[in-house]
């Protein structure tokens, strides 16, 4: 079958419906210029993806091709009740299939995405992919492909982190990063101001990471709504010191951030108080980092990947705790100290 006679699944959705039945969604492009809609949406209930494929075939004008799935959407309800990995087995097993598909968590029913308003955006499959890709390149979220997601899910040292999307008023929106447990269930979501922080602790870096924060320090005298600073991180150096203290892991993380100051809404004479400016940002960053770490430690998940250090540097202890890393992780002491080096502070008037 030639290109134009095939129905190429570009967007695959997996979810549970109200009756707790497995529902599969597919979006295939319509090449026929006579058709009014550019996309063909298919929804079937099936027990497995392979079975769903036969159902898709019976609903589509061409033959179904699953080698070019751009994005896999996974519904919240499914991830709250089941792990998704077994359902993706058929894609992972076939070497002709694409391991570059993006994996996205949908905060709500997947069907909402398929019903979202696309009249001012374009083809659904391309829109969703582009939304995720551009956010990834602007440093807000990570963008694991299917292979990376599977590797993260199977790894005993850390837990997966996938982009999260939600449909609000019929418009799809990236809401941050969904954190999954080691067993593959949904745990919590990092919002868009937390996820750059998580990425910067990971020293995971594409090009830049933007951070924007409220300054809580009382060294600054300004109105509360004006105490805001934004920086853009250009380079990160990370030093992690792994120790065992009282039978528990302790991680001392020294982060050196090279950043540009891009926004400061209050007045500060930076020529006279150059150190002060750095200091308040560093203090604020320490605080935010520790809040973030506390939040994920409580949930017994390790998306940052401290387990990699735990295993690499203290292997004896790692052998003792066996597969219980995530319980140990919750008890570990993590100190994050930030050093900020401002490269460029912009124009001052």
């Amino acid at each position, binding site marked *: 079958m030639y290109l134009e006679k095939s129905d190429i699944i570009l967007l695959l959705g997996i979810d549970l419906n109200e009756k707790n039945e497995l529902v599969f969604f597919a979006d295939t492009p319509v090449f*026929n210029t006579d058709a009014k809609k550019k996309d063909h949406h298919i929804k079937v209930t099936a027990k497995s993806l392979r079975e769903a494929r036969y159902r898709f075939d019976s609903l589509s004008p061409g033959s179904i*091709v699953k*080698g*070019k799935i751009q994005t896999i959407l996974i519904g919240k309800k499914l991830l709250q009740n089941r792990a998704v990995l077994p359902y993706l087995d058929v894609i992972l097993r076939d070497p002709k299939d694409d391991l570059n598909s993006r994996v996205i968590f949908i905060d709500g029913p997947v069907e909402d995405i398929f019903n979202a308003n696309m009249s001012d955006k374009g083809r659904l499959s391309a829109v969703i992919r582009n939304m995720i890709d551009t956010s990834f390149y602007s440093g807000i979220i990570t963008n694991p492909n299917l292979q990376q997601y599977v590797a993260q899910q199977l790894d005993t040292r850390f837990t997966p982190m996938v982009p999260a999307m939600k449909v609000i008023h019929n418009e799809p929106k990236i809401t941050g990063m969904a954190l999954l447990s080691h067993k593959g269930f949904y745990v919590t979501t990092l919002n868009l101001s937390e996820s750059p922080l998580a990425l910067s602790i990971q020293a995971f870096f594409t090009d830049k990471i933007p951070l924007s924060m409220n300054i809580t320090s009382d060294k600054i005298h300004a109105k509360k709504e004006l105490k805001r600073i934004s920086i853009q991180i250009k380079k990160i150096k990370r030093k992690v010191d792994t120790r065992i203290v009282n039978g528990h892991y302790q991680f001392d993380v020294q982060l050196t951030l090279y950043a540009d100051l891009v926004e400061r809404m209050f007045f500060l004479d930076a020529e006279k108080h150059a150190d002060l400016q750095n200091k308040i940002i560093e203090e604020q960053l320490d605080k935010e980092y520790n809040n973030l770490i506390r939040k994920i430690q409580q949930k017994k998940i390790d998306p940052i990947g401290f387990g990699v250090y735990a295993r690499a540097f203290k292997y004896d202890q790692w052998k003792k705790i066996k597969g219980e890393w995530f319980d140990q992780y919750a008890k570990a002491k993590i100190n994050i100290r930030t050093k900020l080096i401002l490269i460029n502070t912009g124009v001052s008037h």
Partner: protein
Amino acid sequence: METNPSNTQDNNQNSNPVSSDIMVNIEYISNRFSHSPDLIIRSFQTKGEENVALVFFSCLNDKASINEDLLRPLMFHLDSISEIFQPEIPLPIGSVQKLNSWVDIEKAMFRGESILFIDNVSHALAFCTQGWPQRAIAEPQIESSLKGGHQGFVETLEINLALIRRYVTDDNLVVKEHSVGKRAPTKVYILYIEDVVNPDYVQEVTNRIQNIKKDAVLDLGELEEMIEDDPLTVFPQFLISERPDNIASNLLQGRVAILMDHSPNAIVAPMTLAAFFQSQDDYSSRWIVATFLRLLRVTAFFLAIILPSLYIAVISFHYEVIPLDLMLSVGESRSRVPFPPILEAILMEIAIEMLREAGLRLPNPIGQTVGVVGGIVVGEAAVQAGIVSNIMVIVVSVTAIAGFIIPNYDMSSAIRLVRFPVMIISALFGIVGLSVGLMVLFAHLISLKSLGVPFGSPIAPIHLIDWKDVFVRVPLNWMKKRPFSVNPQQSRRLGEEKE
């Protein structure tokens, strides 16, 4: 010149010596050429009242030369005909030969010489008074030159030799004369530089030319087919060029050149595949530019062979490899086309080949019109009508342009032809078919030989030292040695000796 008595039909009669009776000779000549209205037999009495007859073909002789340089002195100036038997012949003619046998006389007449029979003398004199319709030296048509000389070969062997001698003013330039064809013998020159060329090649070329058993060989292209290593392949194993500077350059690299009368071309042997991607202009352009052009030609070579096949294979089997946005636009453009990709491609390729051939056969101004009509009108209308997709039009056009970049006409035709089988195998087996097709193609290319030299040299077998002039053209100062793949006697270029 070698004389072969079996050249003429009637051996006994032709090898007869010339009679001393002029009337017998005239009668013999008029019988031999009774069907030649252009034969002129001019009998007259010289100033000394001897009976002589001047015999020549009017179409092959220069009338002014005959009137002024022969008839006038013979009729009015020479007191006795015996004067012309003196060693210093008192006639303003370059070459005068004594001929005894009819065979030689006939050959001389066909060469365009005029023959003088003298009563009571048992031999004839042949005067060099040739003159036939000649084309002026013009700019080469197929291989146009940007910076090099703008003179191309013409249909006269001597002029062509002169053009080459102007470039290679070396006393080691050897010109060996042969003749091919039994019924209409044609002069063939083998040229080489004696202390450079590998003597095996000269021997091989000579043998092959002597072994030609044909009535007549009209053109150098025919000659090439009779002497090349493998006539069953589409790829040319010798270079045919109409540019004397190209031939001179190849002679200096240690190759053998073959010139043939009435053919405005020359053959160069042995050739390698890589040498077909070189143009004489490369050496007169700046080396960086020339290198860029070389790489462009190699790219074009591959594009011309695989682009339509790749398109067919990808559209028919492996659409997963197309980037999403391109896939959507290709799919939309394909959706109106009712044919499978292979049919669509073959349709367009045949259309473009027909356009090319039609443009070639028509006079120049009409040819251009055909190109414009075909290219724009048919292409545009075919897309509008939904017979082909616009992506296909782009693919076919790019392929056609890529095919024309190869500087040699024979090689570029071969490449254009090769892509059809590759297209068919890709339509059947996809990328696997394309890979197998290319493997077979390259296996074939490296199995070819030109005068015994591997055609793939210096790429396969590998001679890294020659790569300075294959994919790149390094500065001329660095090219101190002649190509290794030609295996010259003298590998270091003269004047480039180590101090």
